């Protein structure tokens, strides 16, 4: 089984901590994934307009790339990339006419896509490996720490691509629990982070950041764990603006769940990617290290 890794833009810029830690963790549990040698933008919000085939070209082209390089599966880390490419894949798998149209439009490509590549997200890949197997890799117990898992929306909606139950997902909790840390029952784990309002209407996001981070504090979380670079931007980077707007706002470390796994697996410090985090997470791990 060959798994191709599709990074997407943010993983190479703002979310390098996600990539470094994820690839290290995957290698440790036995997956040597190779990055697609050529890839383009996943389409982002433009691809969410599903009744317009033109807007599916971006993710479609990535599927062609994957097929061309002989991969059975594409692995994505970023939730948006997962959402667009997976939905484009489902669209062409269900509707042969649309598949043909897209292939014909992309006539300059040497490879025709046939719907045979699977799109998976890292959370599913890790869970399918087997919780027992991952538990064996834990070298440092994170007992004493308490994390609030945060899923955001793109991994769970629409229903046909959801990686877990849309209202009460548990996949991240199951995976993080192997480290020995406490994973709290976080009611806001699927609450909207404000998404792209962060570009033009920052205040909408700051309100959400405020309420989500506050609840995490109230429930005793040491940090929020997530799996989406946009959520990370809103919940982590925006904390500085939030502190300016709300004087009683208390910051909290926010990490990609793979960073915590890398630390717990006893992997080298560079793989944790802490230097890319906007709120320094190191203090909460002081006792463990």
């Amino acid at each position, binding site marked *: 089984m060959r798994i191709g890794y599709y990074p997407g833009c943010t993983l190479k810029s703002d979310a390098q901590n996600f990539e470094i830690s994820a690839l290290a963790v995957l290698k440790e549990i036995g997956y040597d994934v190779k990055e697609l040698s050529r890839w383009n933008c996943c389409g982002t919000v433009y691809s969410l307009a599903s009744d317009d085939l033109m807007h599916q070209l971006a993710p479609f082209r990535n599927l062609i790339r994957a097929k061309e390089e002989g991969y059975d599966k594409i692995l994505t880390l970023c939730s948006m990339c997962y959402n667009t490419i997976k939905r484009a894949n489902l669209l062409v798998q269900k509707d042969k006419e649309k598949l043909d149209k897209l292939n014909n439009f992309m006539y300059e490509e040497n490879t025709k896509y046939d719907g045979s590549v699977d799109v998976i997200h890292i959370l599913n890949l890790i869970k399918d490996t087997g919780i027992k197997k991952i538990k064996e890799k834990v070298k440092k117990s994170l007992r004493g720490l308490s994390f609030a898992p945060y899923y955001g929306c793109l991994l769970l909606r629409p229903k046909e691509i959801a990686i877990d139950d*849309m209202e009460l997902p548990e996949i991240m909790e199951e995976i993080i629990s192997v480290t020995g840390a406490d994973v709290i029952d976080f*009611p806001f784990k699927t609450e909207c982070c404000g998404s792209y309002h962060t570009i033009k209407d920052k205040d909408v996001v700051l309100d959400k950041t405020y309420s989500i981070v506050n609840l995490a504090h109230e429930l005793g979380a040491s940090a929020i764990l997530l799996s989406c670079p946009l959520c990370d931007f809103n919940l982590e980077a925006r904390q500085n603006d939030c502190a300016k707007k709300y004087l009683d706002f208390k910051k909290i470390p926010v990490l990609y769940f793979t960073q915590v796994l890398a630390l717990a697996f006893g992997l080298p410090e560079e793989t944790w990617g802490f230097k890319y985090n906007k709120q320094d997470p190191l203090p909460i791990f002081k006792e463990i290290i």
Partner: protein
Amino acid sequence: MRIGVFICHCGLNIAGTIDVKKVAEEAKKIKDVVFSTNYIYMCSEPGQQLFIDTIRDYNLDGAVVANCSPTLHERTFRNAAIRAGINPYKVEIANIREQISWPHMDEPEIATRKALRVIETVVEKLRRNISLRLNKVPITKRALVIGGGIAGIQSALDIADGGYEVVLVEKEPTIGGKMILLSETFPTLDCPQCIETPKMTDVGQHPNIKLYTYSEIENISGYIGNFDVKIKRKTAYVDYSKCKGCADCAEVCPVLIPDSYNGFLSLRKAIYRPFAQAVPNVFTIEKKGTPPCKATCPAHLNVQGYVAATRAGRFDQGIKIIREESRFPFAGIAGRICTHPCERECDRKNVDDSVSIKYIKRFLADWEWKTKNKIDASFEIKEERKEKITIIGAGPSGLTAAFDLRLEGFQVEVIDKLPEPGGLLLTGIPSYRLPKDVLKREIDFIKSTGVKFRMNTEVGKDISFKEILENSDAVFIGAGAHKEMKMGIEGEEIEGVIGALHFLKKVNLGEDIELGENVFVVGGGNSAIDAARTTLRLGKKVKIVYRRSIEEMPAIKDEVEAAIEEGIEILFLTNPVRFIGENNKLKGMELIKMRLGEPDSSGRRRPIPVEGSNYIVDCDNVILAIGEKPELSFLGDVDIKKTEWGSILTDEITLQTSIPKVFAGGDVSRGPATFIDAVGDGRRAAESIKKFLNKEDLYENREFLPPFKSDLKGYREIAEKIDRKKIPSLPVNERINNFKEVETGFNEEQIIEEAKRCINCGGCSECKLCIEKCEPKAIDHNRKDEIVEEKVGAIIVATGFELLPIKELPEYGGGKIKDVIDGLQFERLLCASGPTAGVPKRPSDGKIPESVAFISCAGSRDPAHNLAYCSRVCCMYLAKQAMLYKHQVHNGKAYIFYIDIRSNGKGYEEFVQRAKEEEEVLYIRGKVSKIYEKNGKVVILGVDTLLGERIQLEVDMVVLGTAMIPSSGARELAKKLRIQTDEYGWLKEVHLKLRPLETSTSGIFIAGVSQYPKDITDTVSHASGAASKVLSLFSKDEYLREPIIASVDTDVCSGCGICESICPYSAITIDKRKKVSVVNEAICEGCGACSAGCPSGAITLKNLTKSQVFDMVHIITGDY
């Protein structure tokens, strides 16, 4: 033919588009049409009179009325035809309104031409119509009402009061349905118990009503006027006719179960009456099946029974269940050494740890001995049989077989080469685990039944197996597996290397054994641990060598822990390579370290030697405990089939060997196994031998089968928070130099606490404590389900509804938040006879809530939950519940989150206004998006659309107005009745407006919420309506049916059966002798599906034959 054509204007509906005068003129030109006219309203009184007069005056023998849809007025004109004196089936309708005038409103010319064409077509059909007479079907004037809620009750009473007999079937133990569970009904705030119980009593006492509660419909066949119904009366294990409802039984029942009648907010006993006013007022026992403990026990002991008796402090009943009911003689032995597969399967382990079943059994046996100084069980041997059965081996399997067979009256003799009976119980198990006096007293009990023992006799030496065969009517071989396995390494024959069983036997029989100071034991099973701990007690230094790690050790975990506690070192991942001797005496041993590789066939990881890790230890003795095999040489030259592993081959179920009168069990046929496996085998073989000697089939009607897996789960959610305790044991320094029993046992309080941990997977535990209390002797745990047959002429289905489980609403907590409940549960909290005596309290902590939020449309009106409809009653009952809450908690805050308020009944709007204005219930318009729990409060995320703001509200409790859904089982019932359901599962009426009580199957009617959500007012009306349909049916002696049904041309029919498989009403059968289709004219509804499917055109509908249809097609397509 002389045909008349009558064209209706239908006001402007037809005449506004179609040129009716022109059509009438043109119609006259059609062949056989002798009269043609048009009139403004044909269906009116003068219109019909015109119709009748014309037929008479013009001597017409057929008529076509061109008007609206035949569903509206076909019947009208056919009746008029009868009055006019012609056969009604010579009248046809041409629909020129819905089919022509309305669709072609803007194309009058086309409409006119088309109307004429259609009339020509219908005339063509009419030409070949034959006169038909309505079919007459006799009627059995008895009714069946399915469902005993208020709808079923109302229908039943109406029909019964009308003078006819009613059979009322209800699946619960009582009638009353959901209405009896409510606290007060809107808008009058009547007490539903007060208004419904008189009706329930009427039903119970009515001379015309036969009430079957706790019953379900098994099967229905037949047709209107003639239904054959099979009703399954589920056993309540109580004879309802004897039960007086005194409740003495429930007082002593030790099993508690969440009470579904109180919304699972309180507990009831396994023997129960739903509520005090139940009709009939009797008790029912709920058994769910065989619990996992009993299923997996090879002897199928009633584990849950004796655990429940212990929980109630009734140790006498507990030991009685083991000794007498389960006929198990080894309570004290098993309570000490059994490997307890029951505890492995015990569902309590999914909460914390399994119940200490073994120790409970031990406590009961010890208590019995302490208080009575004897084994207090008596058996009556009914008749002495002359057959002689020989049992080879006085181990657990042989002893059990002997016991069981002796109690059946057979002459039983047990032969064993040891001086005393017990087998490995005597020689293998050390007395610090199983004291010799406990062993002796239970074996003495077996002896007391008359089993003969011939000890010190070795088969194959003192007596031959052949001789035993010749002198016995049946033989059971329970010889065990005693041939100790060798490692096959160098030095094994050196003096000092001994087998574990050999060693243990010497010690247990009190014989001398020479043992050096430094001893090693090789192995990881129970024998290894026994050998090591015995060696320790003989004052020697001992270590254990085991080739895998502690996780893979097959010995009982408690034993391993005890050994380690006693200071015995276990060298894990170590294996002997060779034994080193000097002057043929053992001096030392070479060991090698192992590592674990891939799993082998047993699923455990294979040990692999680590190269170069060898080392040598000094030792005086090595005891090998690496396994045993059966030794079958005692069978002599008798031919008996063996397995490939060298044990005796037996049938899996009957344990019969290749020699019909010889049976075998225990280690001799299984290979080394456990005590309880041997006991189970002995029991099964005894039953087989009994059947064999009675010349019965060995497989049928067996009481004892191999252990199986039970799917039942216990009531995990109400498990009491009690930890499993470790059994008190002697401290290490008091026990390692003697053979005193190590485990000292639990005391009374401790054992009752332990028994309380059982979560009652089987429901009723069959502890039988209820039987002693029942004065009228109404309880019979062996009562079976019963099937009764009834003949009825009409059926009313009133199966009611359920509420959508909160589990289906993950956005509202998915059922995990204790203080988020549904409407019915809140009713119980408000009800005086409910779990809180009518005071609303939070389920989580019992406090009275200071604020309650009521959420409308929880699931209803939501296509995403596949429930797009409105449940109709929630707006009203939430308003009511909010009001009732405020009546009790004056300063409490009541919020209702709504989308719309539907208060459209009599007094309803005023009621809602009262809630808003007088009771100060706060109405917030906006659907709630999420509910979660924080710090003991319930948080609501919603929106106030009138203010345009999001709301986040913290309240003490939330009541969800969950959607009404059809009763579970309604769909299955509909299939049995052959009636339709809609996409949600509600029973389908024929016509929503004009025929809301009838189904597409004649004779079957629907009443109440089974058809669609409605409140009590509408339900009662609906039910009375259904009853009136039945009464109207019964007012005639015969039922007249439409004759447009299928008919078979037997000359053409080949009996292929396609029509039979197509017919949705099962109205067609194939006459096997004549090989033709036969239509049951009473059932056929004339749908025509058979006609479409028939490949030869043999079956057609009367007056709609294939040739009629084809001719119509010719004409309508202009193809002539």
